[in-house]
Structure formats: structure tokens, C-alpha cells
């Protein structure tokens, strides 16, 4: 019990530490949205559209009732972490996977992308494959719990989208993960 508590406190600390980094990376999301040459979308048009969607969503339902966003709900936790060169979903992340599986079974229209990632050591292509296998491991765990294949999309970013860019064990651990992203969230 105690160990678990310490573990989650450490994890929380880690997340906080890395979230301060994310502030710096904030523009990244905007830049990615634009990718002008690639999607041929007008960046000016794309951004207001995004905010419009958010406003209407806020009008449609009370935001505080959305279990996916409620910080007190386990569904707001979206990252499953892995050991180096491993794709096994560790016991400590079972409750998180089970909660999302339960939600998806209860909401057959909901869809998730499971985004696999790896730390930046070693081969980029092997890490791409490893990120993919991590996302497949989470998918399989959800399938076992009754989630329909059609609700899940697996994708790997390998080591290409690190959340943390320092060469430290804490950073590498943060980057070895699968993120659960619901359709419409990104």
C-alpha cells in the first residue's frame, strides 16, 4: 500500500516536473495544427475552428460532469508507462486500462487512439516498432475487457515526439509510454 502511494506520489511529481516543460512546448501543438505545406489547411482558419468546437462542446454539456476531464476521475489519467525495451502493461496501470475499457464498452460511439512512444536511446526504427507494440499491448488488454476493435486505433510516434528531452533516467521513463487520446481531443 505504502509503496504504491509513494509510487504514485513520485509519478505525480514526475508529471508535474514534465508539465512545466510542456509549457515551453505549448507552441508545438499550434505549429503541428498548421503544418501548412502538408495539410494545405489555412492556419488562420484552423485555429478559430478549434476554439468554436470547444465552445459548443461547453454549451452542450456541463464540463465538470465529463468524467474524461474530471481530475478526480481515473479516466483523466491517460498515460501508461513501460520499462526499457518492454511492452508489458505493468500491474500498477491495470486500473487505468480497466477504467478506460469500461468507459469504451459503455460508450460504443467513443473512439480512442493509443499513441505509443519510446525513449530516444537506440534505433529510431526499432523504437517506432516498440512504440507500436506498446500501443498494441494496451489495445489487447482493452480487447480482453470487451472493447470493440473498431473503437481503437493504434499509432506509434517512436522516439520522435518526446515529452521530455533531457538525457536522464526520469526523462527516458516519462517518454516510454502509451497515451490514451479520445477522438476529438487532439
Amino acid at each position, binding site marked *: 500500500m505504502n509503496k504504491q502511494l509513494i509510487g504514485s506520489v513520485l509519478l505525480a511529481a514526475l508529471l508535474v516536473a514534465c508539465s512545466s516543460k510542456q509549457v515551453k512546448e505549448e507552441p508545438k501543438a499550434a505549429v*503541428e495544427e498548421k503544418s501548412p*505545406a502538408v495539410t494545405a489547411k489555412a492556419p488562420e482558419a484552423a485555429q478559430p475552428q478549434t476554439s468554436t468546437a470547444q465552445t459548443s462542446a461547453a454549451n452542450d454539456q456541463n464540463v465538470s460532469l465529463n468524467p474524461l476531464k474530471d481530475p478526480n476521475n481515473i479516466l483523466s489519467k491517460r498515460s501508461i508507462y513501460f520499462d526499457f525495451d518492454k511492452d508489458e502493461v505493468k500491474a500498477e496501470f491495470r486500473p487505468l486500462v480497466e477504467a478506460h475499457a469500461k468507459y469504451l464498452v459503455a460508450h460504443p460511439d467513443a473512439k480512442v487512439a493509443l499513441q505509443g512512444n519510446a525513449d530516444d536511446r*537506440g534505433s529510431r*526504427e526499432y523504437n517506432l*516498432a516498440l512504440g507500436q507494440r506498446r500501443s*498494441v499491448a494496451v489495445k489487447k488488454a482493452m480487447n480482453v475487457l470487451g472493447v470493440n476493435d473498431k473503437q481503437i486505433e*493504434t499509432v506509434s510516434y517512436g522516439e520522435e515526439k518526446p515529452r521530455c528531452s533531457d538525457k536522464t533516467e526520469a526523462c527516458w521513463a516519462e517518454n516510454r509510454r502509451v497515451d490514451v487520446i479520445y477522438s476529438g481531443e487532439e
Partner: protein
Amino acid sequence: MTRLLLVFLFLFPAISHALDIEIVGGAAQQIPIAVVPFNQPPGVSPESVSTIVANDLRRSGFFRLLETRGVATQPHELSEVKYPEWSALQAQALTIGKVEPSSGGHVKVTFRLLDVLKQSQLAGMEFDVAPTQLRKTAHKIADIIYEKLTGEPGVFSTRITYVNKTGKHYSLVVADADGGSPQTVLSSTEPIISPAWSPDGTKLAYVSFEKKKPVIFVQSLTSGQRYVLANFKGNNSAPAWSPDGKRLAIVLTHGGNSRLSLINADGTGMQPLSSGSAIDTEPDWSPDGKWIYFTSDRGGSPQIYKISPLGGDAQRVTFEGSYNVSPHVSPDGKWLTYIRRDSGKFQVAVRELASGQSQVISDSTQDESPSFAPNSRMIIYATSVGNRGILSVTSADGRVKQRLSEMGDVREPSWGPAAN
């Protein structure tokens, strides 16, 4: 004297800043050569032809460049050479030359390679080129010297490709083998990885994340036109051209795990090659086309295997250590370079395929993506200094290393085929 008129076509005139060169290491048993600074009037070109020649030769690991400044006579013509002065310096070979204005805004570059012991000329050539071609001419001269003195073709006129990340921007770059004249062939705000040269050097296959997932493109370096080679469900990655350029080995997931497939160069005729639940990735063809080397963790840890492109069972190639990835076969088919992880260090290893003998040839700890030069004598790879990715070039025996560095974060190098 042979007379050559070289005409080059430059398709991407925009030049970004060149990579800086930093040489580390050194070795015995190199050919001692003196390159006398060419008589080159200021203003012809910001770059000294003889300096480029000397740097090329030094980088190969086969030459010891002698200091020429203390020698009384600095010859530029054959008649000015006093051989005893160069014997005293223990030079075996001597290179002299000059750069002078020619007609039509061109410049004339003359060079001679001399055997100091025999007091005879080994090579002599004259080039009449536009000033923008001087760098190419210098590499050509270095290739001629290299071949005359080692008996093997030089690779200084070849090209490399790599990815440069600056801030949030990714550029796919093609440059001279020494990092000079870098040309951006693709810019993106999403990652680009795994560029691979077509065997004729006219195209690059690469993986771009611009569609929010890995998709393989093929791009012509002459027209800049590109097409999607593979955009199947899941990941599309790790393109590798067959030696005849007609097919590529690629890695697809179809939503499951990474496996090898073959596909025609026009994107048709995809067929799976490997099967199973393990990761299979990083294919690379042997030059005779009979084998595809690849990385797989089917044995519990990532190791290098080979499989026939016709299918059948894979054979394990590496056994030592718990992590051997990113195989690339040398163009002469004799060697395999790859990344080995040992005691937490990721380093470049070279294996003699016939004997199975292997050795680590780098002294850095975060090495990636090694590939051979077309003459199988040098290897380019990515490594890092601090948090920044840089490129390093090493002689295949690891004795001489040179860093190619550039502003930004450089990775994913691949050495192009022999210049035509």
C-alpha cells in the same frame, strides 16, 4: 596531360551554411603526402581548392597530411619542384596546382600528383569550370589522388543525406560527403526519418509523419516531385531499395506488430515477407540481392537476422550482447555495420560476414544509423554531443574519425551511391 571539361548541373542553388569539420583521432601506416597550397587568386572562390583536397584525403584515414609551410620552395608548376626538399620531409607523394581565370568567367584548375621517390608524375589534369563548381572539382581531384595511391575509387564526390531538426522544423538535406553544399530537399513541421538512396542516386525514399503517422514517400532529387510509396493502415516505415532499384523492403504494421514487406518502387504489388508476433524492422539488402538483413526481437532481444527476399526461414546473424540493431551491409558485400548496446553504451560495430568477427569502432555512447561509403572504406553515423545530434565519419577500421557538425540537431545520415 589529360584535358577535362566538366559541366555540372545544379538543381538546388539555395545553399545553407556548411557543416564545420572537426577531425578526431589519427593513425599510423598512412601514406605521407604533401599538398602544397594551390596558387589561387583571392576572389575566385571563398573556398580554397587545395584545402578541400587536403581535408578529403585526411578524412579518409589513408593519408598523413604533411605540414608544407616550412619548405623553402612552394611549387605550383612542375618545373618549380625540387624533389630533395620533399624527400627530406619524408613525403611519398606531392600535390601541386593552381587556379587561374579562364574565358567566359570560368576558372582553370590545374593539378599534378607526383611520386617523390621516383621523381615522376602519377597524374595531371586540367579542369575548366564555373567558379561555383570549384568545390566539386576539388572533390574530383581528391578522388583521383585517392585512387592513384590506394588503387581503389575515392568517395569524395559522393553525397550524403541526413535530417536536420532546428527548433520544431525538420529538414531533409542532401550534401557533399564532407558536409559541404547542403541542399534542403524537404521541410516539414513533423518528423522525418529513415532516408534511403535509390541505387542510382536519383531518388530518396523516406518516412514522414506529416499525415500524423509514419508514411513512406519517394522523392526525385532531380525534379523534386514525390509520391506516396506506402500509406497502409498503421505504420509505414524503414524503406530499403533492392540493388536493382525495382523494389523496396518496407515495414508495415496493419495495426498489429512491425513486419517486413516487399513493394514495387511505384507503390504497387505489396506482399508480406516476414510473419509472427515479434518486431521485424530495419531491412537492408545485400548487394547481390540474395538476402535482406533486418532487426528482430524474435529471440527475446533485438538482434540482426537475414531472410531471403523469396521468403523462408530467417537466420540469426548476431549473437553477442543483448541489443544489436540497424544493420547495413557494405557495398562490397563483405562487412556489416550495426549498432551494439553494451554496458549502456550504443556504439557502431563492424562485422566481417565471412568470419563472423566483429568489433566496436566508435568511442561515443549514443550512436545511431551507421552506413557505408560506396567504396566500403568509411562509415557515416549519427551520435550526440550534449543534447545535440551530430554526424561522424569514421574509417571502417575506426582509426580516423571526423565530426560533421551543423547548427541544429542532425540525425539519420545515409551515404549515397558512387558518383556517376
